[in-house]
Structures are given as structure tokens and as C-alpha cells.
């Protein structure tokens, strides 16, 4: 469990597909300061590795951008390019 400090935002972070496999986890909770962006959420969840340019981000199940600020309780997802459908 992450420590809940005053002013901190609790965010649920999810990783999918090859990215989740590489990081060795699919879900983690992090605390970030108020005003933190999605990119800051990545840094809190994956310390020491910059957010790869090819990774897509979603906030509360809608596509978003790394510079988007997050709110308390958000679900932030990181995933590789999608490969659904067929043909």
C-alpha cells in the first residue's frame, strides 16, 4: 500500500501487453503530488526509465497525453501500439 499523504493523489496504474510483460506487472497504485501529470505518474510507477515515445496513454479509459494532469482516483493506463482486428 502506498502512503496517503495530505495533498497527494492516489492513482491506479495499469500496463498492458508487451509493456506489462517487460515491466513484470500489470497493475500498481502510486501516490503523486497534486497537479502531477500522466508523465509524472509513469515516473512514480517506473522509476529510472523515461516514458517511451511509442507508449500510448489513457486516463479513465480514454486516450490522453503525457502532459495531462491527473486527479485523485484516476485510472492511468500505459500500453504499446494496438494490434486488434485482422486482415
Amino acid at each position, binding site marked *: 500500500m502506498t502512503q496517503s499523504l495530505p495533498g497527494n493523489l492516489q492513482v491506479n496504474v*495499469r500496463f*498492458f*501487453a*508487451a509493456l506489462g*510483460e517487460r515491466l513484470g506487472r500489470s497493475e500498481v497504485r502510486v501516490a503523486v503530488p497534486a497537479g502531477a501529470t500522466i508523465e509524472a505518474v509513469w515516473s512514480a510507477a517506473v522509476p529510472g526509465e523515461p516514458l517511451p515515445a511509442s507508449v500510448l496513454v*489513457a486516463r479513465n*479509459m*480514454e*486516450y490522453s497525453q503525457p502532459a495531462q494532469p491527473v486527479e485523485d482516483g484516476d485510472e492511468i*493506463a500505459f*500500453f*504499446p*501500439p*494496438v*494490434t*486488434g*482486428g*485482422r*486482415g
Partner: protein
Amino acid sequence: MKVRVTEQPFDPWLELRAYQDSRDELAGRFGATAAFVGTMRDFNQGDAVQAMTLQHYAGMTERHLEAMSSRAAERWELLDSLILHRVGRLLPDDPIVLVAVWSAHRREAFEACRWLMEELKSTAPFWKKEETATGSRWVESNTPG
């Protein structure tokens, strides 16, 4: 307008037929139905593929496919649309995706069906992992439309 993501194998043509029959408001009004079915092949990028696992982002997937369907209905005069997508473990010849569109005229049906498939492939949160003789691998990118 319907969207469904399923772990169960489905028969796209029977699903399409059953959905159409269930929609009384279509009767007598639609002149054009365009449909696309994507099916798992037993080869990809030169290798034999024995099976495949489709991961998705449950929740976001459905929301995203519904938003796509709504955008298509704003852009073209459509009477209805249906999207089915398989997830989980698939074998060769298993249908993966069905996109069907009903409209009064064929231009709208063709264009909206193709647009929905391109949008789905490039934006819906699905990921394929193939099992080949040498192990499993994530598919890195889709073929261009």
C-alpha cells in the same frame, strides 16, 4: 447500435443475421448492408502460427468501440451498426472481428464499414500474441489498410 467483446468463439454470419432480425426498426428501411469479418490465419509474417492470444483493456475497449460507432453514425446516415470482437485464446480459422453497417444506400454502408475497421485496428485497445513453433511473440504492428 451494438458492441460486444467476447471470449467465446462466435459465428459472424449467424450473429449478423440474428442481430438484423432482432431489429424491427430496420424492416423495409435498409437497402444496404456492408460487413467485414477478420479471421485468424495460420500464417503471419512468413511464419506458421498455431494459436493466438488477444489481450484487451476491458472497459476501455467497449467504451472506445461505442464511441467509434457513435462517430460513424454522426458522419454517415446509418440505420444501425454491429461490432463483435473476440478476445482470449484463438485458433486458426477463428473469426476475430465482425463489423456490420446498415443504411439506406450503399455508399454510406461501404464507407462507414471500412472506416470503423480502420479505426478499430489503429485505436481500439487490443493486442495480439502469436504462438509459433519457436515460441510466442507479441505482434508489434498491424498491416496498413
